[in-house]
């Protein structure tokens, strides 16, 4: 089941194509990194959108020069506790400015939703239906964020300063 970042269940627009199967010319496809890298230019010349499943033990830099033509990168969580793809996601979003769909696949549970979203994921392949129902609650649980990430939220460090500046402006106005 796929959820978008508002928690809505969405259809998968991409067809997963095995490495030995023929690529349909007009359908959006999701293919392995190995297949993609074997001949990226040929694959990207197709009309329909391309998505790549990128393993979590491979440097995402290898994708950098193709990112503006990729519609989707799927990053994997083979186990809940394996957090490598969080770094990959932030690097794709923040360093390489990837604007396409970033999909979390594998062992994806509700307790990760907020971390995933903050790291730049916008589509979540969810294992448990009950977790899908709890999406809104899980991502709105926190209102304070201490560190900058891919979601661009203002950190508490900054908010304190903004508040202090506004406070002193008000005081100055009251005094003036």
């Amino acid at each position, binding site marked *: 089941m796929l959820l978008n970042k508002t928690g809505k269940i969405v259809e998968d627009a991409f067809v997963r194509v095995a490495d030995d199967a023929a690529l349909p010319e007009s359908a959006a496809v999701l293919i392995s990194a190995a297949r993609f890298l074997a001949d990226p230019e040929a694959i990207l010349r197709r009309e329909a959108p391309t998505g790549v499943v990128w393993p979590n033990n491979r440097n995402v830099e290898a994708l950098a020069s193709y990112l503006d033509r990729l519609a989707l990168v799927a990053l994997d969580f083979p186990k*809940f506790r394996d957090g490598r793809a969080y770094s990959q996601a932030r690097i794709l979003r923040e360093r390489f400015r990837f604007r396409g769909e970033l999909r979390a696949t594998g062992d994806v549970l509700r307790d990760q939703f907020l971390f995933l979203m903050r790291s730049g994921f916008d589509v979540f392949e969810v294992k448990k239906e009950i977790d899908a129902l709890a999406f809104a609650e899980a991502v709105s649980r926190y209102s304070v964020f201490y560190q900058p990430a891919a979601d661009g939220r203002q950190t508490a460090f900054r908010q304190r300063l903004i508040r202090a500046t506004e406070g002193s402006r008000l005081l100055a106005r009251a005094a003036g």
Partner: protein
Amino acid sequence: MYRYDDFDRTLIAERVAEFRDQVARRLSGELTEEEFKLLRLMNGVYLQLHAYMLRVALPYGTLSSDQMRKLAHVARRYDRGYGHFTTRQNIQFNWIKLHELPDALAELAEAGIHAMQTSGNVVRNITTDQWAGVAPDEIEDPRIYAEILRQHSTLHPEFSFLPRKFKIAITAAAHDRAAVKVHDIGLRLHRNAAGETGFEVIVGGGLGRTPFIGKSIKPFLPARDFLSYIEAILRVYNQYGRRDNIYKARIKILVHELGAEKFAQEVEAEWVAIRDGQLALDQAVFADIAARFSYPNYLTLPDNPPELAAARKNKRFGAWLGNSVANHKVPGYAIVTISLKPVGAPPGDATADQMDAIAVLADRYSFGEIRVGHEQNLVLPHVAQRDLPELWRALDAAGLATPNIGLVSDIIACPGLDYCSLANTRSIPVAQELTRRFSDHEQARELGRLHINISGCINACGHHHVGHIGILGVEKNGEEFYQITLGGQADENAALGTLLGPAVPYAQVADTVEDVVKAYLELRERPDEIFLDTVKRVGIEPFKERVHAAE
């Protein structure tokens, strides 16, 4: 003291609510124990031999008297009336019930205390010098950086599922009281030739089954870059740290396998890409955090007031003064260490009544502030020297004036097989027996500085590798044996101890340590050559000969 503001308090409350929901899902069966395990560990909850254990964070070891009273309350209401202070400046409650955990955490949250990231594969409590802010030999208060780092690493979206736990320690003094060289990252604040403040960055230190002294990978990192550089280290580690074997997953193994130089290059490449981004430390942000650390309004007082001279005539007071009281950076004041190592007791334990008593004394004599040190003792950081005699009488009455700080009976020990599900052997009874053997404080003072560290298994929570005398419990054919090492140290000259010989059975540990101590007395050149220096000078062999001859 750092005071949490509404941002901090809101986040703690939100964390308690999240954890309450996770516990409810576990109790209803919606979460399996396997799934819950990872979640509870991120909030300091372990499953021990007999019960759940809650480890509560005391960031950089600073707490207020009100927070201490809250800990006492939790010890009484949810536990069995005591708590255990740890080597990472935290406190553990050993008998908490799962269904009561959320309420206990909610009560702690009222006092601005939490258990976030005291366990799990995350950045743990940032530790520092227990004398931070008052030590005469420090260049700046390291807790400001520790607090910035605490906030930055709390619920970090990228680094909440690291290969393994991650411990960071900071020192800002000439003498390292925070053991920074045996941490995943050790930061040593110092000034360069131009007078600017920056950090030496040491990485890949750690104990456990594969002990390493950390490698220095950056001699001078400008203070403005410390967050981005740490983020770069964590990012390299998160991607390349081993996940195939839990025993090889700490950053020390990655640093060792790549080599410190190659590792440093990887970090540098990552850091260059992010150093001028949002993580560059803004002076205004630094000043804002620094401004929320309040310092006492010290009085203008003379050093060595007449009250002190008069009280010295009491021998027991004199012994305590000489042992447990250190110089403060403000004239007329002193730093008092409260020993949690009385003869025959488990190291680091305090009863709820003692916690309350310490809170009262902190209010009366230390501007309401208390510290926890990694040696599992407590500290009153701002005591007027003229108040020392009164304070001593009160501590003595509460059983908190044992004058053994830094001496042979000031033992660091892990909980061992009495509590811990990982342990192979007991630690606490070994420590208790040793404190009985060395209960004569006069004799202990003559022995001088001597640190004994005991771990009940190879995970080394008692830091045995860096004890002047290290004791490691191992199991042999179902029986408890102990390996003894000599010559370890955890400070700026950090070193791992050398094995004395074959492991000895439980019943012989105290005898063997006594033999080692006797050998030292024979071997030392002068009475002020401490044990560690004798071991360094003569090596392990003369000790081997004497201890074996004694058998």
